[in-house]
């Protein structure tokens, strides 16, 4: 354990000056971090925020003097507690890592070694660095588990990573990082992979323990509302440059840069709801399961009005994606029925005729895997035109160009491969492919979850515009309440395979709530830096 008397709050712990990092892509070194200064004092939590590619993880790892394979630090100094890490040798850096500077990764499930027990991994650094004897480290780990409010803190360490839930694993990883009482912890998107209701507990546990031990931290995230709860000070990064830096409350009250303001954008997007009694898709008492044992859908009934957007919200495992598979026929339902335009749909995909297939299209979360990397945009969009509408040759190409226009891409994109498109453009092509079939219903399965905030906003705006133009119906599956607020007319809340609540947006998002809706909505982080504190107080009272 580090010497406690040395831990005077306010002393400079980490100072990075003029840091430049290059990354290798296509055999060329390109700058990822373009000269950043950063100062962190003892006991301070610094938030690093930015979109993907902003260089925030690279910067966080650089604080440990670690560069991922394919990255190299080219200029600048990293001084940690008086020691220049850029000049230190490997052994010195290894001595710091894990013991004085610790790391909490995004996906605890992937970052715990599946072959070793949790306790073994928690105390690993303490043992290998000879910081404390095994027995003491084990006792201390159990104490940390208790402080982080893990269930069965005395025995949970004997379990293997796959035997505990994601939220628990993330807290165990926080315990692991705390094991040697480091001076600094790097949190790299530690709650991004978690459900909102789990996120609250993990955030509270992490904030609590950092305060208890007066540990300095760098908190990396793309979610402004989350960082507002955790950080004393926020740095906004973009393309490897610092955009803006300010204490948290100041930053939230008056962001000075346009880019920072734009990060708020999606949260402000909101469409007025409009009811419609003409039902295009009617799901009645549907059950479905994988392999028959556990019902993944349990007596689900949903009515989808024509030309509107119905948002299906729920956490992972709530059955929302299974619902999409049941509607499309990919997963034949085991009970109930689904009617489309008043006609019953065959349960299995294979029994449906081509025209029915055409009318229901799907857009997936990851355009990277949903688009064939070896096909050009011409063929990706052209294929459904041929298959459903029988268009060929010049007719087909003309239609592809007009579809490209409708997704706001010009005709030069027609000969590109998916790898030559940005993430947002790929998702646009996926949308065009679905539109090509001239469907009545498009099922959107987490279509914006993998995208950055600003791109999300563009995609959502595009979807709304297309709905206005073609009167297409969306069934929009998401876990993100902000997105639901932005685009839906009606909302279906799902939990453990059942529909908890459904109705117009104004009804579902306003009290009185059923208990689960209440929990779900109250767990969505808000921009208010006191949100988490207030929420915990409120929940403690109840």
């Amino acid at each position, binding site marked *: 354990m580090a010497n406690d008397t040395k831990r005077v709050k306010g002393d400079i712990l980490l100072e990075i000056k003029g840091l430049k990092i290059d990354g290798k892509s296509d055999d060329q070194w390109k700058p990822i971090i373009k000269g950043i200064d950063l100062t962190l004092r003892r006991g301070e939590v610094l938030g690093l925020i930015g979109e993907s590619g902003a260089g925030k993880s690279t910067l966080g790892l650089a604080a440990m003097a670690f560069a991922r394979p394919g990255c190299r630090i080219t200029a600048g100094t990293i001084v940690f507690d008086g020691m220049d890490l850029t000049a230190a040798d490997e052994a010195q850096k*290894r001595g710091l890592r*894990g013991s004085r500077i610790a790391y909490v*990764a995004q996906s605890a499930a992937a*970052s715990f*070694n599946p072959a070793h027990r949790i306790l073994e991994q928690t105390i690993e650094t303490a043992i*290998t660095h000879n910081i404390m004897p095994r027995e003491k480290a084990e006792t201390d780990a159990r104490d940390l588990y208790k402080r982080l409010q893990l269930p069965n803190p005395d025995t949970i360490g004997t379990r293997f990573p*796959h035997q505990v839930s994601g939220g628990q694993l993330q807290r165990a990883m926080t315990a*692991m990082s705390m094991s040697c009482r480091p001076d600094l912890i790097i949190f790299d998107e530690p709650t991004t992979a978690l459900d909102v209701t789990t996120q609250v507990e993990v955030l509270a546990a992490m904030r609590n323990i950092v305060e208890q031990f007066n540990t300095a931290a760098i908190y990396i995230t793309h979610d402004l509302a989350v960082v507002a709860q955790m950080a004393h000070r926020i740095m906004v990064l973009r393309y490897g440059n610092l955009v803006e830096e300010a204490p948290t409350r100041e930053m939230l009250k008056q962001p000075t840069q346009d880019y920072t303001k734009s990060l708020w954008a999606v949260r402000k997007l909101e469409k007025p709801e409009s009811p419609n009694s003409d039902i295009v898709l009617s799901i009645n008492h549907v059950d479905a399961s994988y392999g028959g044992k556990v019902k993944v859908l349990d007596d689900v009934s949903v009515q989808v009005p024509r030309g509107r957007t119905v948002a299906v919200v729920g956490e992972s495992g709530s059955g929302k994606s299974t619902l999409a598979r049941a509607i499309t026929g990919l997963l034949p339902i085991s009970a109930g029925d689904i009617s489309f335009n008043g006609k019953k749909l065959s349960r299995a995909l294979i029994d449906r005729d081509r025209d029915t297939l055409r009318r229901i299209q799907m857009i997936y979360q990851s355009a990277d895997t949903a688009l064939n990397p070896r096909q050009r945009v011409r063929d990706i969009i052209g294929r459904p035109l041929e298959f459903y509408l029988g268009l060929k040759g010049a007719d087909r190409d003309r239609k592809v160009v007009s579809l490209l226009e409708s997704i706001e891409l010009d005709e030069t994109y027609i000969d590109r491969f998916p790898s030559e498109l940005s993430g947002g453009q790929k998702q646009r092509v996926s949308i065009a492919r679905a539109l090509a079939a001239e469907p009545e219903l498009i099922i959107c399965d987490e279509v914006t979850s993998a995208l950055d905030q600003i791109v999300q906003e563009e995609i959502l705006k595009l979807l709304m515009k297309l709905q206005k133009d073609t009167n297409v119906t969306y069934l929009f599956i998401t876990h993100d309440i902000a997105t639901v607020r932005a685009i839906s007319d009606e909302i279906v809340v799902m939990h453990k395979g059942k529909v908890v609540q459904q109705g117009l947006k104004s009804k579902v998002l306003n009290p009185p709530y059923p208990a689960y809706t209440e929990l779900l909505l109250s767990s969505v982080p808000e921009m208010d830096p006191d949100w988490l504190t207030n929420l915990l107080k409120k929940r403690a009272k109840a």
Partner: protein
Amino acid sequence: MNLVLKTVLQRLGLGLITLFAVSIIIFSSLQMLPGGYAQNILGQGATPETVKNFNHELGLDRPATVRYVEWIGNAVRGDFGNSYSGTTGTIKRSVSAIIGPRLFNTFFLASMAAIIAVPLSLALGLLAALYRNSWYDRIINSVTLTTIAMPEFFIAYILVFVFAVKLRWFSPLSTVGEHTPFLEHIYRAALPALTMTLVIVAHMMRMTRASVLNLLSSPYIEMAQLKGASKAYVILRHALPNAWAPIATVVAFNLAYLVVGVVVVEVVYVYPGIGQMMVDAVSSRDMPVVQACALIFAATYITLNLLADIISITTNPRLLHPK
């Protein structure tokens, strides 16, 4: 643990079914061989009459299904019948008596090669992973690739030339008998064991290297590095425990080869193993011996693969410790 036991029993059952299917394939494909023991032994001048009598004596004039059932029924009880060629007049030699010492020699040689080759290739593979893209890595890769690319007999002759002819450390002939003392046996089998080691090391070593390297981009490996673990520690403690399954599969495959694929090496060193005997038995159409050998080979493959499966299961905590 229950789950593991269940899986192992399942695999064992599956292995037995496979063995049974293989026995049918062996038996029926041997029926398709042109000629027979009678024609072979009696020569070109044999009259159909004598061939017929001869076959009758051996019971070969009965239908194939009857003979198969009789053979497999006895084989299950450990009786592989009598060798045709070992039978003169009333003296019969059982297949087991003929195969036994030969089989011992083959397993002796295979074990020797395995004891050298498996630890060697694991160590070389791990070192290659640790120092990947270094000079060591490149040299070890090209050397092992060269040895695997050369035919076994060629390697054998080179070893004979160097160690037997030039240096005179070993005898070029590895003749052993039933009464050869243990250490003497090891000494005589050294060159063939070394030959086989050179042949199989490359495959196992490259698989070890590849499966370990394959894991090095995993987040938990990066996490281990960020916890201040050294390179060697990361590979041994964090990568290797997750790499056993593919390594075990390749090791099993190569060990099976040591038993069933060594006839060339045996011939070069005149080592009295089972491979050479099987080739002789095929050419003289001594079916009981051929069938027994083939069945032993099949059983070897199945057992070793079963072992590899068990290793894969027991090194996977998801299976060993279910939720």
